[in-house]
């Protein structure tokens, strides 16, 4: 009888953000669907009420079914035989329940059978699902690949595939190959066009493909013979019904064991081109990845939430030296930091979701009619922010998920090291979040230009200008000081105009920006709801200040020449 939505009041707080009014209006095209669909909202309040009610269902399913199933899913995992994958029985049950509740295509518009939900309530679902079972969130979130078909495919492809996704057919994105991981330009899987048949064929191998035996695959393949870089890659959709792809093996992973990670062999597999040739990596994968990164942010936040709760519950129950261990400062400090990091990453997640909602929805409106110049500016503004916040948030939330899972085990002491407690699974599940969909190091690479071009600083300025209750002014003053340090940091690192020096310190710059941004977001959360966020805001800003000061000291006391001590001597090899 647990409900993972209603037991976390933070969700309703984020759902009620003022920007939602504009988002929902755009998403619902002024509620035009009410004429055609009896489940479409009538107005803003009605839409918000629907999100809330549907999220309650998601929360109930996660609390009553997916979470209790998670342990067995972790133990049993999927199996492979004759090239086909079978999910763990409980994974299949999760899918069946969500499918029956028609929660498999939340984001897609009603004409394809979806619920037409904005990103915010959709990601709240992802957050909740992940708290229940991170490995299941992987399978469920891959419905996002349908978004790529929607954005770049033609109308026939949309009509062929999206309704199937809505009805519960799962998807995969087949990008990685043995020699193409972080560097996707090296993808070799071959796509050949048979002119007589007017048909594309795929041949080659993909590796580390999550949910690789999905019904519908998006495949990145080399369509231009003789090319070696990104410009020779195109995006294809492969339908399992046409055959030609077998699962050679599934990986034995450390965590997210419920999600099958497959090695795929493509043997003359028929496929359809999505969008234009040569745009596969340059445009489509980039868009796909941004969506996926948001999904991993939600997954990370869900794991953080689960870890924080596990640690808290244990610390309340576990007694040593005659009292509950939560009474000891060493323990409650850890717990407060865990809660603060969880809340911080969640606040960044939903801020990013709103940016994505704004620009994506405007972009979609632009498919139907010409946008006004004001709307175009609005779209550009939010698109840039989404672009800046996605890598920052993905890096931050996934690192925090790891730290929180680590601390959850620490609070459990010796018991946490045993397989008997949930925190052990969370620790293993968390470990992938800062690796896949771009490692934290690659998130820094994507985020650093928003440090140097000032996107973060500009947004920080906007936060600083927002009205605040006098009680919270002292906390804001800390953030103002942190911002001054950050500005100095940026100056110091960019002044020499040395690429490598910038790369070396990039992590420290991006992290500092992250601390300030998350601090401001929690500050404004607390401004609206002191009871819910004041503690996290205080604790997080104190934590963040310490981190920024550390970065500041490290950077300002370092010289370009120091790099030599870090750099390997490659000449000897």
């Amino acid at each position: 009888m647990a409900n993972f939505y209603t037991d976390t009041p933070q969700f309703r707080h984020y759902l009620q953000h003022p920007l939602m009014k504009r988002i929902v209006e755009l998403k619902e095209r002024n509620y035009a669907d009410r004429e055609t669909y009896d489940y479409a909202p009538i107005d803003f309040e009605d839409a918000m009420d629907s999100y809330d009610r549907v999220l309650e269902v998601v929360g109930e399913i996660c609390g009553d079914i997916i979470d209790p199933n998670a342990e067995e899913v972790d133990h049993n995992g999927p199996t492979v035989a004759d090239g086909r994958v079978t999910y763990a029985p409980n994974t299949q049950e999760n899918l069946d329940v969500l499918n029956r509740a028609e929660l498999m295509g939340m984001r897609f518009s009603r004409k394809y059978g979806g619920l037409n939900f904005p990103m915010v309530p959709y990601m709240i679902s992802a957050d909740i699902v992940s708290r229940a079972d991170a490995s299941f969130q992987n399978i469920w979130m891959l419905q996002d690949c349908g978004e790529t078909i929607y954005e770049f495919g033609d109308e026939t492809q949309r009509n062929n595939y999206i309704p199937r996704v809505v009805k519960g057919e799962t998807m995969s994105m087949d990008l990685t190959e043995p020699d193409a991981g972080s560097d996707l330009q090296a993808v070799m899987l071959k796509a050949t066009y048979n002119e007589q048949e007017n048909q594309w064929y795929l041949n080659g191998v993909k590796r580390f493909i999550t949910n690789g035996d999905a019904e519908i695959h998006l495949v990145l393949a080399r369509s231009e013979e003789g090319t070696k870089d990104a410009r020779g890659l195109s995006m294809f959709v492969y339908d399992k019904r046409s055959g030609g792809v077998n699962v050679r093996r599934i990986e034995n992973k450390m965590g997210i064991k419920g999600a099958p990670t497959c090695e795929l062999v493509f043997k003359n597999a028929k496929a359809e081109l999505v969008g234009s040739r040569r745009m596969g990596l340059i445009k489509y994968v980039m868009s796909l990845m941004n969506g996926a990164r948001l999904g991993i942010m939600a997954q990370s936040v869900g794991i953080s939430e689960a870890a924080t709760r596990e640690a808290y519950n244990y610390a309340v129950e576990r007694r040593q030296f005659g009292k509950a261990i939560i009474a000891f400062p060493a323990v409650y400090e850890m717990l407060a930091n865990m809660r603060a990091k969880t809340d911080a990453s969640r606040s960044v997640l939903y801020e990013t979701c709103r940016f994505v909602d704004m620009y994506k929805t405007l972009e979609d409106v632009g498919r139907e009619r010409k946008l006004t110049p004001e709307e175009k500016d609005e779209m550009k503004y939010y698109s840039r922010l989404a672009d800046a916040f996605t890598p920052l948030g993905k890096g931050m939330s996934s690192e925090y998920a790891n730290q929180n899972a680590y601390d959850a085990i620490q609070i459990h002491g010796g018991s946490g090291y045993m397989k008997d407690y949930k925190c052990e699974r969370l620790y293993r599940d968390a470990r992938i979040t800062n690796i896949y969909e771009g490692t934290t190091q690659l998130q820094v690479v994507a985020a650093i230009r928003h440090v140097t071009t000032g996107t973060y600083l500009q947004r920080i300025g906007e936060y600083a200008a927002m009205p605040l209750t006098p009680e919270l002014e002292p906390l804001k003053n800390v953030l103002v000081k942190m911002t001054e340090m950050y500005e100095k940091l940026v100056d110091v690192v960019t002044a020499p105009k040395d690429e490598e020096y910038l790369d070396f310190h990039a992590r420290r710059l991006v992290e500092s920006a992250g601390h300030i941004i998350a601090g401001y977001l929690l500050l404004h959360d607390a401004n609206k709801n002191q009871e819910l966020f004041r503690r996290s805001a205080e604790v997080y800003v104190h934590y963040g200040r310490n981190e920024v000061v550390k970065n500041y000291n490290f950077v300002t006391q370092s010289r370009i020449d120091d790099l030599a001590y870090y750099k390997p001597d490659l000449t000897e090899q």
Partner: protein
Amino acid sequence: MAFNIIVLAKQVPDTRNVGKDAMKADGTVNRAALPAIFNPEDLNAMEQALDIKERFPGSRITVLTMGPGRAADILREGLFRGTDDGVLLTDRAFAGADTLATSYALSMAVRKIGAYDLIVAGRQAIDGDTAQVGPQVAEKLGIPQITYAENVEEINKEKIRVKRRLDNGVEVVECPLPALITVNGSARSCRPRNAKLLQRYKHAKTVTERQVQNLDYIDIYSIHPYLNLTEWSVADVEADPVQCGLSGSPTKVKKIENVVFQAKESKRLTDNDADIDELMRELIENHTIG
């Protein structure tokens, strides 16, 4: 092959989450302090009906509930999960009913609904725990009944085969239709609400609810007739008012005892006289001895 199924369901106080204010000083249930929920075993019963509907497309499920106005929630909960229709039996004259008066009222409503193949109900409600209403309705309608059902194994136009869960094992029995079955909590739990049905039916209201609440979306009730929930009074089901409610209830509550566990599992006493006297006084006061 399609079936007309009636689900008997009750809104009950959530006695599983009893807080401090659950009982009033006079020992009666403080309904206001307990959240009103769908009686758990009625949900198990509804799942059996939904499953039959899924197996036999075209089947229709009507949820029937008796209670105050807010019991319309039960009808909506049904619609959110896939039932087709709902009837709220509500009237001041139904108030204070024991199981006899309740089963009389329900059976009259069933007669008014008309043609049915199967009635399903939960084994018992968590507030009264009598398990009498289902069997009594069957008796009043003169149809066979199967109690403690765990699963409908087979159903066709002539008969139904049901697995029963008993104390000492499992029993599979058959009976002709129409019939009434009461479903055990050990049956599989009810499916979650469906996201689209939830949005489709969330504004469904009884006439009384529409009058009481100041509704913003008044036009939708003429555009979508299915949003109007049926409400029946004593007169609507042509029931005899004397047999309804308090006057139709021979059950008289003689005494209600409010049992409150004040102490934790054990109590530590010393051997001094004051402590022993204290214990004696306590045991006499709560009538454990004397």
